[in-house]
């Protein structure tokens, strides 16, 4: 009899569904908080100004100096390189390969979580931006002039990033199917995708300019940058400073397509949470129907999931637009387009809450792997032990089911409150009369209650 410790998929332990009593408590608190917020709210906007205060000049000088930027950029490029190399040359066991955990857990979840507290942490480490800037400098040096870029079509705004965001999640949760069974993304495919994305991003940066593309089209910059708007640190005029948490978000959604980015975030997280729970039967029905038409099973499963991920995006978008349409009916309302962009940032805390609720436990478990065996043995060869931590593993007992439930429900409730706060504040800025502003917020309230209760519902039926 052999009892070998061995891990396989990234999600070795799935969360238990939130029990009915906790669901009821969560939903109740959400409703109570919402209505008291409406009744007893403030009357002048408080978050529209960042109240940015510089931190010590010395600290700014060190952290924002060129050498620091070069070092951070080099670290970013190096780690991306390690991830791609591991994916191409390492083991095909997804959990034993550095690539998947590093890209989809450490970065994809870690940057949103920590940026939402501290501000934009990704920007200095962004490997593509680093390469783009070096290339730009090199061009100036050789050609003796600034590189000429195409003018970015302003109407496109952040749409490329919104679509890219869906594509990243699609790659993670939909693409990895085989024979009609979801098997997860394999490290090799992940590395190839990273290479393709690198080529695409560098090309776009060459066309439109590095900073321009990072602000609008580069998926990770835009996505992580969105969450960083909630954080309390920010850079202004070359100096690092403190700002009121949440306040930077009020200026984020100015480009077209910003609402699409935050909606894509909520929609993709919803899809991942619902595919094994709330949508399971519907997905199976469509899958069977498609496979009966003679389509091969892998294609049928991918197509089914693609349809549902698109439906999620459409559904979340529709709820938001209905809310915006409702606000439009309140006396003194700005134009539909202005409202649509102007309230997009109020969904950022909800998007973050969805991420925490769905991936918090995965993050805690998988980061243990990241800093033990994946760090010492990135290729998963079982013969390397760079830092002496290769024999470490994941302690799944460090989080009880109850702890996970409370974090999940707590995150949704807090996200709901922060979203309402931002929405109320924005309404006060848009409506001259605070009573009209309050009235308009019945609509946003309905939108947020819908998202939060849907989030709770997903947790109460899903398998993780």
């Amino acid at each position: 009899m052999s009892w070998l410790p061995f891990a396989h998929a990234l999600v070795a332990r799935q969360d238990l569904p939130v029990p009915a009593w906790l669901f009821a408590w969560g939903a109740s608190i959400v409703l109570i908080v919402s209505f008291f917020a409406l009744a007893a709210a403030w009357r002048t906007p408080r978050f529209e100004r960042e109240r940015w205060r510089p931190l010590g000049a010395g600290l700014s000088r060190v952290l924002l100096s060129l050498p620091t930027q070069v070092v951070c950029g080099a670290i970013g490029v190096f780690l991306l390189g390690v991830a791609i190399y591991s994916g191409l040359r390492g083991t095909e066991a997804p959990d034993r390969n550095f690539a998947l955990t590093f890209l989809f857990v450490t970065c994809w979840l870690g940057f949103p979580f920590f940026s939402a507290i501290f501000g934009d942490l990704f920007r200095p480490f962004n490997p593509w931006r680093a390469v783009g800037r070096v290339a730009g400098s090199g061009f100036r040096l050789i050609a003796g002039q600034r590189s000429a870029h195409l003018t970015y079509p302003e109407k496109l705004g952040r749409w490329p990033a919104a679509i890219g965001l869906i594509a990243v999640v699609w790659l993670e949760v939909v693409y990895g199917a085989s024979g009609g069974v979801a098997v997860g993304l394999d490290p090799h495919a992940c590395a190839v995708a990273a290479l393709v994305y690198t080529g695409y991003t560098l090309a776009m940066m060459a066309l439109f300019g590095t900073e321009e593309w990072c602000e609008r089209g580069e998926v990770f910059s835009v996505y992580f940058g969105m969450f960083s708007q909630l954080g309390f640190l920010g850079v202004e005029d070359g100096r690092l400073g403190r700002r009121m948490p949440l306040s930077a978000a009020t200026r984020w959604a100015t480009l077209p397509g910003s609402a699409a980015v935050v909606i894509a975030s909520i929609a993709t997280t919803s899809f991942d949470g619902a595919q094994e729970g709330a949508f399971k039967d519907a997905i199976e029905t469509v899958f069977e129907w498609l496979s009966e038409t003679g389509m091969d099973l892998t294609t049928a499963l991918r197509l089914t999931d693609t349809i549902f991920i698109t439906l999620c995006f459409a559904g979340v978008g529709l709820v938001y637009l209905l809310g915006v349409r409702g606000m439009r009916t309140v006396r003194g309302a700005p134009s539909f387009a202005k409202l649509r962009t102007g309230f997009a940032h109020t969904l950022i805390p909800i998007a973050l809450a969805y991420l925490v609720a769905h991936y918090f436990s995965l993050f805690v478990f998988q980061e243990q792997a990241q800093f033990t065996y994946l760090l010492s043995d990135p290729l998963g060869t079982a013969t390397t032990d760079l830092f002496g931590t290769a024999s470490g593993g994941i302690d799944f007992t460090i989080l009880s089911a109850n702890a996970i439930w409370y974090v999940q429900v707590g995150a949704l409730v807090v996200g709901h409150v922060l979203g309402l706060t931002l929405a109320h504040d924005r309404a006060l800025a848009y409506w001259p009369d605070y009573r009209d502003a309050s009235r308009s917020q019945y609509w946003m309230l309905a939108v947020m209650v819908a998202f939060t209760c849907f989030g709770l519902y997903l947790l109460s039926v899903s398998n993780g």
Partner: protein
Amino acid sequence: MNQAKKFLLPLAVLAVAIGLVACGGSDNNDEETVAGTFEALPGAPSDYAKVSGDAELSRSDGGTTAEIEVSGLVPNTAYVAHLHTGGCDQPDAGGPHFQFEKGGSEEPPNEIHFEFEADAKGEGSAKATSDQEVPVGEAGSIVLHLADDHGTAMAASHAEFASLFVHEGEHHEEGDDHGDDGAGHDAGDDHGEDEHSHSDKIACAELEGGGGTAAVPTIIVRNGEPVGGIKQLEYSAGEQIRFKVSSDEKEEIHVHGYDLMQDVPADGTVEFDFPADIEGIFEAELEGQGVQILELTVNP
């Protein structure tokens, strides 16, 4: 808008919300019931061929209630029944008696016993209660005996108990048609039940979901697929997880999260037996083919 009116809506919502919580709360029922039906044991005397009945065991916070209802018995005869840890289909039906304190007293309250007398129609019922909760997985079956032998056996250690049955006579013949399963008896010889002759046991009700020794769930794998789909097993934290996998092909079985792996040979069976110390939902799969065979749920 005046202040009073302003708070009317929130208060109404508060009321609705409290109602919602109350409803949610009432769903949270801790009681759990396992049930089974009595069937005559192969070695039972011929008088009992038509014995039938129901057995039910309910656990609730801090207590156990069990009830049996049996018909097809010999009229006006006393019977006893005991809660056993094993299933009905093992050679010594039911295996050892269930005991709260293992190796402790062989009498209630440490064991769960039933005593009753069949009426003129050959029907009878009995109820047993305990202020302790029988752990999940240990209520294997309820086995019915004639009271006489048992009473005699008990007389030495427990005078009052024996006195209840002192008027009983012989109502059955000693069966000797199953001496060939003597090997099976040996296994049970160490638990103090050997005073009973095997034929003493009349009927047995396997408690569904009770999961005693003989009721270890088995996942049957044929052609790389679990027969009947992915098996679902649910436990509470702290319990012992036990299941078997039998496969027609050589495979490696991997339980995720707990990170346990065992090889199963072709046409062989492996048994997993480990404590449920991680909460969550886990998969077990055929490692070679990547096919899921079990969804294991461990509740807090």
